[in-house]
């Protein structure tokens, strides 16, 4: 440790860290808006102010400050003022002036120009790292925030784009350059998209077909399948974890082996079986094949194994039968794993496309995903409607995720650790 500063109190340190966080967010928003309004020249300003940010809020207050510190501080201050000024001025159509002033970004990207740009970035980085020992950790932390913010921006961008396009008019959705905020919010898109499948209806008498139908099929099939999977899996997992019977090892081995088989192998025979049974285009085709799931059985069995056998002994003394023990003791105890398994079963069913696509031919038996896929093919370039349909297809799951986030994340983390 080279720096010789006074140590900060904890409260001051907390304040610095908080400020650091907020300034990182502000800087990132500045980058985005600057890029949007002024073009690539912003990157220079961004890096400069990033350097300043790394210096402005150090962990330790240093009494002696180097000349470089002051040079960079003033440069950064000027850059920031200039930046804000230009943001203001760009709305007064000063774009050309600024591009002229800061036109370091080469429009035809030649190797010489690229290497010039890289040299410039390299110099800034050298400056930043030169100051590192004086202010430990700050640069790394700022970098961390910026990387996370930029990454997060790209994670959220498609969602934002989907939502905002769903309110645009047809012409605006096909405008280039695209607009980040619709000129006029056209809420009727949602209604139009919701009623769009109507045009595909045939049959006698024609059934009015909207996304209501697709949603009700998906929700009912999803709920029935989830309940069925949980019931069959709990029963089977109970037998595997708490009972001894002839062939237990073989049965369990077969189930584990089934996890290795890709689902695609099963598609054709299952399709033919259902066709022979006359189940195509019926609810049974969407539900019955998925009423048991080897993965869920395995997951529950692993959890049931951790419940001590003593409980069963004492339940027996109290006169409880096996089923009563499962229903009143085991299932309440394994609520987290039941919820996790339920979520995955429901999601898997809600999101599945291949199977519902091949077993449904009549439009009124489509699940939401098949309906959406068909709408995607019909709608062509009506992206404002497609985005509206995508938004309401995604919305239920996203809302569910926000309420049950804990179970999602625990469930996934558990699958990783248990392996």
């Amino acid at each position, binding site marked *: 440790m080279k720096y010789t500063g006074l140590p900060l109190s904890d409260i001051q340190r907390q304040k610095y860290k*908080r400020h650091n*966080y907020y300034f990182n967010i502000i800087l990132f928003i500045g980058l985005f808006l600057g890029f949007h309004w002024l073009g690539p020249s912003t990157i220079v300003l961004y890096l400069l102010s990033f350097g300043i940010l790394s210096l402005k809020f150090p962990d330790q207050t240093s009494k002696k400050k180097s000349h470089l510190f002051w040079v960079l501080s003033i440069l950064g201050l000027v850059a920031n003022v200039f930046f804000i000024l230009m943001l203001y001025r760009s709305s007064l159509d000063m774009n050309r002036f600024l591009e002229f002033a800061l036109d370091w970004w080469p429009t035809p990207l030649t190797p010489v120009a690229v290497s010039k740009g890289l040299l410039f970035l390299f110099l800034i980085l050298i400056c930043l790292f030169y100051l590192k020992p004086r202010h430990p950790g700050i640069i790394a932390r700022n970098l961390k925030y910026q990387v996370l913010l930029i990454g997060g921006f790209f994670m959220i961008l498609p969602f934002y*784009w989907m939502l905002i396009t769903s309110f645009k008019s047809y012409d605006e959705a096909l405008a280039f350059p695209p607009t980040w905020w619709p000129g006029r919010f056209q809420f009727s898109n949602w209604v139009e998209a919701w009623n769009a499948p109507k045009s595909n209806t045939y049959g006698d008498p024609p059934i009015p077909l909207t996304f209501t139908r697709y949603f009700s099929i998906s929700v009912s099939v999803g709920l029935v399948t989830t309940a069925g999977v949980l019931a069959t899996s709990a029963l089977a997992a109970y037998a595997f974890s708490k009972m001894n019977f002839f062939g237990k090892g073989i049965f369990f081995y077969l189930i584990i082996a089934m996890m290795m*088989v890709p689902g695609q192998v099963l598609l054709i025979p299952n399709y033919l079986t259902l066709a022979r049974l006359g189940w195509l285009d019926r609810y049974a085709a969407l539900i019955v094949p998925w009423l048991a799931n080897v993965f869920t059985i395995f997951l529950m069995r692993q959890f049931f194994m951790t419940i001590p056998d003593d409980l069963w002994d004492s339940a027996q003394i109290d006169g409880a039968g096996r089923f009563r023990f499962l229903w009143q003791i085991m299932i309440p105890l394994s609520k987290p794993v039941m919820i996790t398994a339920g979520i995955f079963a429901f999601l898997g069913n809600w999101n599945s*496309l291949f199977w519902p*696509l091949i077993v449904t031919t009549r439009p009124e038996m489509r699940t939401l995903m098949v309906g*959406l896929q068909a709408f995607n093919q019909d709608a062509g370039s009506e992206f404002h409607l497609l985005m509206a349909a*995508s938004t309401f297809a995604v919305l239920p799951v996203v809302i569910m995720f926000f309420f049950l986030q804990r179970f999602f994340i625990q469930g996934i*983390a558990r699958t*990783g650790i248990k392996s």
Partner: protein
Amino acid sequence: MEAYIYLSPAVCVLAAFWFLPVILSIIISFTNWKGLDTWSTVKWVGLANYKNVLTDGEFQQSLLNTFHYVLFSVPLTMVISLGVAMLLNTRIRGRAFFRTFYFLPFVTTWVAISIVWRYFYHREFGLANHFLHTLGLPRLRWLSEPQGVIAMLLQNIGITIKNPILAGPSLAMFSIILTSIWRMIGYYMIIFLAGLQNIDKSYYEAADIDGANAWVKFRRITLPLLSPITFFILIISMINSFKVFVPMLIMTPNGGPDNTTSTIVFHLYEKGFQGLWLMGHASAVAYILCLILVVITLLQNTIFGRSVHYGG
């Protein structure tokens, strides 16, 4: 005997729709089954289906596409998600916030987000081309560009690649790869994060005392102790990537430019459930996929299995 009663519901369904089809599928793959034929009308053709599949140019193309997809998406997804997990595993503000944002794409459905990304990559008014345009770069054809990405990159410095294997995935396929990376980062990040949090902090403290820098700590502590998780993710992400289908169906419904986004499962769908409904042919494709997965998993076990560090 009570146990069998508890087992029966699950076993009945599994027997009818999981165990039995595995065997039926093999038998069908040896017949000339088409559409809704019955057992009495089909003929035993031996290994003809397998021979046809393996010599079929379309299948070979889809095999190559799938390998390109796996080779590009799996390592990139793993590296990025490990990076994000490492960043989130430090003491920073807004951790839960970032974690939710990065995880969000995973909970959304493939169908809906594929539509969004199809719009994103649109040649004329997509956001991707808008970004390129802002940066002063030429616009790309994204989902309708059959040229390989490596070939396109090397073309800029004057090297031409003719070999389709070395040319890399077509830009259309690469766009889909980017989408799948975007979607899967959150999922593997959560698993990595759980693994990172399981590593005992005392190792790092000991390394600090010895004066190790961040890279050495990562290389000598984090990576070895994380290897079981990394191995697990490698296997499941490989298996899932080989079975990719939905984004291709939505973003490039006809197999993409020059068939460069048609994957194995896409080929299975086109042969088995479209056009001539060649069930025998499609079953053979499914079994070849199954075989590839088994071989890949075994290979990984023998190659990486030894360097996985359990316990400690």
